[in-house]
């Protein structure tokens, strides 16, 4: 007889091991542990940054000193000793390469283990890949082609040196250095990240993609990404990541800023798979991310799509500030938590311009003993006449030892706007599992089908090659339930 017993299901969920748990031996160069002004100066000097950048970092650092860790999220973890973290690590030799053949074979092997074959991607998909290993960009492809169209896609460290006018104008314009504790920390010590500028009227011909990956033990990651879409332009940007297995908790505090000018559109997609800790809740990445987009001009549009399966703790609210009239903000999310993972994630839509529209589709999946919270704010200001929001927050529970929570906040300051909020909570029922099994599927196959069906609305928003990867990831993340 088959066993659909829920305790067994939970036990199986919690015995699933992290598939990508391995480390790569690439020589590292560290700044000493801890944080002070000298470390900030060290990082800036390592990056050969202009003076204005150092000043910007120091200002952020000094403000950070006055701030406290936010405690309002529904997550529980021991206090972080910020003096016990490395703030800079870089591969010792930064290779200047013209072809992938020259890249460290061990590094290429690492990416192959992740199923990310760069050369294959280059050949088959036409995706430009900017790889960040720990903190320094190693290789950027397709740069020449993009350059011809005036598109700038380069490591942040390079942009700081080569496009200071754009950096001065836009860096911190959406997420100010003073925005929150983690954003201030990131501003002070950010190591690298991606910079992207799409000029007026240009439709970026390829998906821009970055794979992030943590490597050195005890190394915090402070990525900084800035995407600017000038008038009438379009870009689709992908970011995916996975991290090796570690016992120590790893701190990750990224900042992503997007600016969309008049008639511009930016699609930002993420598949996030940081190491979630082992089945007993030991280890795992702390992921405290600030992502925000500004719809600066009329008729602009920013769309966030995220598939979150990793991290021990996730604190992340991709948001849109809808400043331009008729601008549109969208947020599509699937967040999976298993074992002892904790996720507090959602979105914030701030309507400022007239006739602005926003849409939030959030799908939470909780298994094991995890806690999964949706936290969202829809804020329609007085001048945002005739604005609309639609929010849908669904929770799916696997087993009876996990938690799903919804914290929707709605503030409306005018009477011509309409806000709709829908929420559902459901369980993967024994009846559905029995039905699928009776049609010949084993538990793994059945769960994959059910979960991908549940998350379909969000997965459909991903670019196709990413959607396939995301489907696999969902299945892997919940594999225990399953097999």
């Amino acid at each position: 007889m088959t066993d659909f017993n829920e305790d067994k299901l939970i036990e199986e969920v919690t015995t699933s091991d992290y598939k990508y748990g391995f480390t790569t031996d690439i020589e590292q160069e560290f700044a000493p542990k801890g944080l002070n002004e000298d470390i900030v100066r060290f990082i800036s000097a390592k990056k050969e940054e202009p003076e204005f950048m150092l000043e910007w970092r120091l200002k952020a650092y000094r403000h950070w000193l006055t701030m406290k860790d936010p405690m309002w999220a529904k997550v529980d973890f021991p206090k972080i000793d910020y003096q016990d973290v490395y703030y800079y690590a870089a591969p010792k030799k930064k290779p200047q390469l013209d072809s992938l053949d020259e890249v460290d074979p061990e590094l290429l092997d690492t990416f192959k283990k992740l199923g990310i074959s760069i050369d294959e991607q280059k050949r088959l998909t036409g995706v430009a890949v900017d790889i960040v290993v720990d903190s320094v960009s190693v290789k950027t492809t397709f740069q020449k082609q993009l350059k011809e169209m005036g598109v700038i896609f380069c490591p942040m460290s390079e942009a700081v040196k080569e496009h200071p006018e754009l950096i001065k104008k836009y860096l911190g314009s959406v997420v100010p250095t003073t925005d929150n504790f983690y954003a201030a920390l990131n501003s002070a010590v950010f190591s690298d990240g991606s910079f992207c500028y799409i000029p007026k009227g240009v439709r970026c011909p390829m998906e821009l993609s970055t794979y992030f990956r943590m490597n050195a033990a005890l190394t915090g990651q402070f990525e900084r990404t800035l995407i600017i879409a000038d008038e009438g332009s379009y870009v689709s940007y992908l970011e995916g990541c996975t991290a090796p297995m570690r016992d120590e908790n790893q701190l990750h505090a990224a900042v992503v800023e997007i600016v969309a000018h008049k008639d511009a559109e930016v699609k930002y997609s993420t598949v996030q798979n940081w190491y979630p800790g082992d089945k007993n809740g030991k280890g795992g990445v702390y992921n405290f991310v600030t992502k925000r987009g500004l719809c600066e001009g009329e008729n602009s549009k920013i769309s966030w799509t995220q598939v979150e399966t990793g991290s021990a703790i996730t604190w992340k609210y991709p948001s849109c500030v809808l400043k331009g009239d008729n601008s549109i903000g969208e947020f599509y999310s699937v967040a999976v938590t298993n074992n002892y993972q904790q996720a507090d994630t959602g979105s914030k839509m701030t309507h400022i311009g007239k006739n602005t529209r926003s849409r939030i589709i959030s799908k939470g999946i909780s298994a094991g003993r995890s806690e999964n919270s949706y936290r969202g704010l829809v804020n329609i200001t007085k001048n945002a006449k005739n604005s609309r929001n639609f929010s849908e927050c669904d929770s799916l529970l696997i087993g009876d030892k996990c938690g799903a929570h919804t914290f929707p906040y709605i503030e409306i300051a005018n009477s011509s706007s309409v806000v709709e909020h829908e929420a559902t909570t459901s369980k993967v029922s024994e009846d559905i599992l029995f039905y699928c099994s009776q049609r010949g599927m084993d538990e793994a196959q059945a769960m994959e089908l059910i979960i991908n069906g549940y998350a379909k609305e969000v997965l459909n928003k991903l670019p196709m090659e990413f959607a396939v990867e995301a489907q696999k990831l969902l299945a892997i993340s919940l594999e225990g339930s399953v097999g």
Partner: protein
Amino acid sequence: MSLLKVENLQAKIEDNQILKGLNLEVNPGEVHAIMGPNGSGKSTLASVIAGREDYEINGGRILFEGEDITDLEVHERAQKGIFLAFQYPVEIPGVSNANFMKSSVNAIRKARGEEPLSPKDFLARMREKSALVEIDKSFMSRAVNEGFSGGEKKRNEIFQLAMLEPKLALLDETDSGLDIDALKIVSHGVNALRNENNAFVLITHYQRLLNYIVPDFVHVLADGRIVKSGGKELALELEEKGYDWVKDHAVEEQTA
């Protein structure tokens, strides 16, 4: 060799003993009808043969093609060719009928060491089989049973049956909740699928279904046992005299 052999089967749910020593033998090419009053254990029998975990088997065994399958998992039995048409088919949000059937067909093929069906062959089979139960094309992209009427759900069960071509099909009150038109469509589908290699077990309250799907054998289930078996005319006799007649009859036989 019989296709299905149920020997002295006893099954309970919690402390409630439902099957109390049930025997049944089904050969390829046969259609058996199992009738009986509410609570007699008809649906339990279907669930237990399919392998549902809720029930505890505390006696007897189930043989399929001579193999003892009493301890096999649900999907393993399905892969061997046992199909259950559900009395209450569930809804699976976001999963299209096409995707569901693809997963199902290919899971069974994989278990048998066969390659997955090519998309072309799969779609061709979908088209052919959906015509059998007069299902509209748009149905393929709709979520499994979501928003389906009772009749549509039952037609979907027969459609799945047609897609999977099992050796043994258990139809659990497929006729309940069907109007006469839907009943004709469903019956037509089942009759078209009958052949000398497969077998059907129809679980039903009413004789009406048996006008359309004519059984070779009729069994009456009461209080967890088969108390009377006969040919198709037994169903008519039951319709006329009611279940009490059989029960009394059975008691007489046992006390005699």
